[in-house]
C-alpha cells in the first residue's frame, strides 16, 4: 500500500487523477476501521491532512462553505447558529476523540446510510463541492447518494467542501441507538423549517439503502401548512396533520432487519422522530422558548 501525502490541494487532485483508486483519508475514522478489519486494502491511501484549507469554513450570505475536514467538534462549537441541525447531528457522532478527528467530507465519501451528518444535510439543503483536475462542480445533496456506500463522485474527484444552506428557521435532529452515547444509528431523522420559502425539508438515515428525504411527507406537510395558513398564524399544527406527516415519513423508509434493529422498528421510530422533531421546531418557530439548538 502506497501512502500519498500531497502538500497542496492541487497536488492532491493530481494524485487522484493519476491514481483514481486511491482512497482519500482525513480523520481516518472510517478508513482506518476498514483497514484494521481488513475489509479493504486500497492500493493507495491519499492523505489529505497536510491541506490546511480543508479544515476551514466560511460563513457567507446564503451558505456556509464547510471544508471537508472540519471536525465535528468545531461544527458543534462554532456553527451552532448557522447549522443547528448539523451541530445536533455532530453531537451524536461517536466519542469526543472521534468528533475531534472526523468531518463531514468523510461521511460523504463513505456514503454509509448510517452516516450521522446525512439527514441534517438533506434537511438543510446542501451542495457537495467536488473537484478534479478537470474542474469543479457542485452536486446537489439530493443527487449525491447513489447506492449503499456509493456516491456521485467520479473516480478522479475529491470532496473539497460542502455548501450548506444557513438556517433560516429552526432545525432538529434525532437519532435512535440502543445506547445513550457512542452508538451507530439504528435510524435517524433530520428536519428543517425554511420559513423564507415556506417549506419543510427532511432527511432519514439508516432506514433505506441510502440517506433519503421523506418527499411525500414534505409535500403533504408543505401543502397542509400553506392551506391552513400556519406559517402566518403560527398556531399549533393540527395533530392529525402531524400524525399524517409522521405516517408518510415512516412510509419513506425502506429498511432492513439487522443486528441493530428490525425493519418494522425502524419504520416505527422514524415516524415518532418525525412527529417529535416537527413539534420541537414548530414550537420554536412559534416563539415558544426553546431555541433551535434544542438540547445538549
Amino acid at each position, binding site marked *: 500500500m502506497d501512502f500519498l501525502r500531497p502538500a497542496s490541494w492541487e497536488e492532491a487532485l493530481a494524485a487522484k487523477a493519476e491514481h483514481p483508486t486511491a482512497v482519500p483519508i482525513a480523520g481516518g475514522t472510517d478508513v482506518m476501521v476498514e483497514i484494521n478489519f481488513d475489509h479493504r486494502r486500497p492500493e493507495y491511501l491519499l492523505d489529505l491532512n497536510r491541506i490546511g484549507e480543508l479544515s476551514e469554513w466560511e460563513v457567507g450570505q446564503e451558505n456556509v462553505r464547510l471544508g471537508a475536514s472540519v471536525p465535528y467538534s468545531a461544527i458543534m462549537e462554532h456553527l451552532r447558529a448557522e447549522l443547528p441541525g448539523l451541530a445536533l447531528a455532530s453531537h451524536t457522532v461517536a466519542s469526543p476523540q472521534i468528533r475531534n478527528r472526523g468531518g463531514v467530507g468523510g461521511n460523504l465519501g463513505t456514503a454509509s446510510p448510517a452516516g450521522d451528518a446525512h439527514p441534517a444535510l438533506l434537511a438543510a439543503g446542501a451542495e457537495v463541492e467536488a473537484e478534479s483536475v478537470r474542474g469543479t462542480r457542485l452536486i446537489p445533496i439530493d443527487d449525491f447518494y447513489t447506492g449503499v456506500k456509493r456516491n456521485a463522485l467520479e473516480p478522479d474527484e475529491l470532496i473539497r467542501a460542502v455548501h450548506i444552506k444557513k438556517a433560516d428557521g429552526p432545525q432538529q435532529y434525532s437519532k*435512535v441507538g*440502543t445506547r*445513550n*452515547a457512542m452508538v451507530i444509528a439504528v435510524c435517524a431523522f433530520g428536519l428543517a423549517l425554511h420559513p423564507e420559502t415556506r417549506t419543510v425539508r427532511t432527511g432519514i438515515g439508516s432506514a433505506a439503502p441510502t440517506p433519503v428525504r421523506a418527499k411525500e411527507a414534505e409535500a403533504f406537510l408543505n401543502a397542509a401548512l400553506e392551506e391552513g395558513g400556519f406559517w402566518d398564524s403560527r398556531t399549533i399544527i393540527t395533530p392529525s396533520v402531524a400524525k399524517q406527516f409522521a405516517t408518510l415519513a415512516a412510509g419513506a423508509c425502506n429498511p432492513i432487519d439487522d443486528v441493530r*434493529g*428490525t425493519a418494522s422498528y425502524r419504520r416505527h*421510530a422514524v415516524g415518532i422522530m418525525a412527529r*417529535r422533531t416537527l413539534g420541537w421546531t414548530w414550537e420554536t418557530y412559534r416563539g415558544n422558548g*426553546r431555541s433551535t439548538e434544542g438540547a445538549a
Partner: protein
Amino acid sequence: MGVTGSPTNINQGTRTKGGIGESTLRPDGILKVTGEFAYSSDMWHEDMLWGHTLRSTVAHAEIVSIDTSEALATSGVYAVLTYDDLPTAVKNYGLEIQDTPVLAHGRVRHHGEPVALVAADHPETARRAAAKIRIDYRELPVVTDEASATAPGAPLLHEGRDDHHIGHVPHPNIVHRQPIVRGDAEAAKARADVVVSGEYVFGMQDQAFLGPESGLAVPSEDGGVDLYVATQWLHSDLRQIAPVLGLPEDKVRMTLSGVGGAFGGREDLSMQIHACLLALRTGKPVKIVYNRFESFFGHVHRHPAKLWYEHGATRDGKLTHMKCRIVLDGGAYASASPAVVGNASSLAVGPYVIDDVDIEAVALYTNNPPCGAMRGFGAVQACFAYEAQMDKVAAELGMDPVEFRQLNAMEQGTLLPTGQVVDSPAPVAELLRRVKARPLPPERQWESAGEHPDVRALPGGLSNTTHGEGVVRGIGYAVGLKNVGFSEGFDDYSTARVRMEVIGGEPVATVHTAMAEVGQGGVTVHAQIARTELGVSQVTIRPADTAVGSAGSTSASRQTYVTGGAVKNSCEAVREQVLEIGRRKFGTYHPAWATAELLLEGGKVVTDGGEVLADLADVLEDEAVDVELEWRHRPTEAFDLRTGQGNGHVQYSFAAHRAVVEVDTELGLVKVIELACAQDVGKALNPLSVLGQIQGGTLQGMGIAVMEEIIVDPKTAKVRNPSFTDYLLPTILDTPTIPVDVLELADDHAPYGLRGIGEAPTLSSTPAVLAAIRNATGLELNRTPVRPEHLTGT
C-alpha cells in the same frame, strides 16, 4: 531474561497504618489510568515471533483437508502447525472435561474454533499467511437449542463420551444434569391460593474485558518454556498445558502478566498452549495477541438460558412451593458447564424460604459458541427468572413486591433446598428495607437544567430523541443469592509465602502468591493483611508465578477470602516464628514475653496492653523468616446426583437493588437513572475497593438488562456481532448513579468475618432494571436484554 513489560515487584509503603479496613490506594491504579501499566499485550522480547490462530469460518463441519503449503512458503513464516503437529497423545484440554481440541481434528464444532497456527516475524505476515491455508469444509447440520440437540438422530457433539457425567444425563448432548428435590412440591401446591408460572430467556453476555487475550512464550535452554500470560488461575492453566506439550510441570514456568480484566473469561485457556507450541517448534519467543474481533471467539461467554418457573403462595403471602427447570446452553465444549449447572440448580430458589421444591438444571452441548464462567456463574440467570416470579406472585396477591419478598426472606438458620443450613448472617429483608427506604431521585430531572431540556437525563441521551415525550418512570426491586468460593467438594485451597526481614533498618514483609490480580484489588488487600498481622508499613508483593503453590482461581468471589485467608495464615505463622526469636533473644528481660498476648505493631513487638517489648529490627537483625503454607476453608460436599442434597457451598452472599428508570415508551429506549444497592460484605477490608466492586458488578448487570448480547444466528450458529460496534457496553452516559449501602455482619467462619463480594451485585441488578421497565410499561418482558422492539411491539 530479555522480556520487557513483564511484571516486577510491587512495593507499597504507607504513611497510615495501612491495615485492613482502610481504603489504601491500589498500587496499579494510577498506572492504569495514565496508560503506563504494562498489560500482557505490551510484552516484548528481542527476536520474538508473532503467532496467529486460524479459526473456523463455519460452526459445524467436517474438515476434509487442510493445505498449509502456500502459507509455509511465505517469506517470514517460521512455522505452521495443525493437529498433526501436536507432540503428544494429549491433544485436548478442558477445565473439568478434557473435550476441547488444542487444534481441530477432522471436525469443527463452533464458529471460530482454532484450526491452525502460524508463527512469523511480523503479526501481519502471520495473519496473511494464515489466510493462505486452504481448508476444505464439508458443512454439517447444526444443533442450537434443546429441541434440536435432543431430537431423534441429532448429531452428537461428542461421540463416545467417557466423562463422569455421561452416566446420569438423559442424552449425550447434555453435559450435566442436576436435580434438587426437597419436600413435596406437588402436595404443597395444593395448599397454594395462587400459582404463577413463567418462561424466561436470558441472552448471551460477554465478559468484554478490555485487555484482549495475550501472552509471550519463551523457550528455555532446558527444553522447557517460560510463559508470561494474562489469566485467572496459573496452576489450572499449567495442569492443562504441560501434558499437551509433553513437559513436566516444572519445565513450564508461568508468570502472570498484566491482566486487563477477566470476569470469568480467562478461566479457560486461550492462546497459552498455542504460543508454547510455536515457541518450542521454532526455538524462538512467540507472542500472541488477539484483536477485539478474535477476542469474541477467544473466550467462553455467559451461558444463555431458558428458564421455566412455577411458584405458589397462600393468600397471606407465604410461598408454598417452587418448581423450575433451567436449560443452559453450554455450546460446543464443556468448559465450566457442570459447575454452572451446580450453581444454577442449588441457588435456583433464591434468597427465600421455600420448603417444597422440585428443581432441575441442565447444560447442553450445541454448536453455539462455548459458554463457561462469567461473574455470577449460573446464579445470574436464575435470579433474573425468580425475581420476575416474585413480582408476579406479589401482583397476583395484591401485595407490595418488597413486603412480599421480606415476608419470605431467608435468614441465618434457614434450610436451603440442598439441605444446607445458612449458618452466617443472611440479612435479606434488611437489605431490601435499606434500598426501599432511600429517597427517590427527583422526577423529571431533565427539566432542572433551565430553558433547554437536559437530554443527558433522558432516554436516548445526546441522540436527542425525546424532550420528555412518551417518558414514563418505573421502579423495580430485586435481591439475589450467590455462593462464594468453589463448591461441591472441590479442594479449594490457596497458598501464600510470606517473608519478613529487616532492610535498611526497617522491617519489610514480602508476600508471594500465585493469585491472579485481574483488577479485583488483591495486591492491595494482601499488603493490608500483611501490615495488620505483622505490624510493618513496607510490603512487597512479588509477581504471581508458579514458583509458589496454587492460589486457586480469581473467580467465585473467592480471592480475598481464600488467598487473603492464606496470606493471613502465613503471616500468623511468620509472627509466631518472629516472636519465638524474640523470646529466645529477649525473653529473660521481660516477663511479658512469656505471659502476655503479643502483637506486632508499628515495627515493634507489643503486648496486648500496648507495652513495647522490642523493635522488630532488633529481634530479626539479619535473620529472615520465610513461610509458605496452604490454607483451606471449610470443606464442602458434592450434591447428590438424584436429590441434590449436600452441604455444597462455602458461604453465601447477598445484595439487593432498587432500579429507577425512565422509559421512552414510544421509542422503546431506556435510561437507568439510579441503581441503589445494599450488600452485606461481612467485613470491608478495603472500603473503596468494595464500593468499586459493587458499582462495577451493578453496571455489568445493567448491561445485560438493556444492551449487551452476543447475537448468534439460529440457522448457522455463527456470531453476528463480534465487535464493540455492535456488542454494546454501557458508557459513562449510560451509567446511573449507584448509591451503595454496605453492611458488615461478620461471618465467623471467614477470615476477619469477610464475605466474598464480587458477584452478588451482578445478580440483582439485572432483574431490578427489568422490574423497573415492567413497572413503567406494563409489559411482561420475559427476556433479557430488553430491546426497543420488545418495548414497542415492532
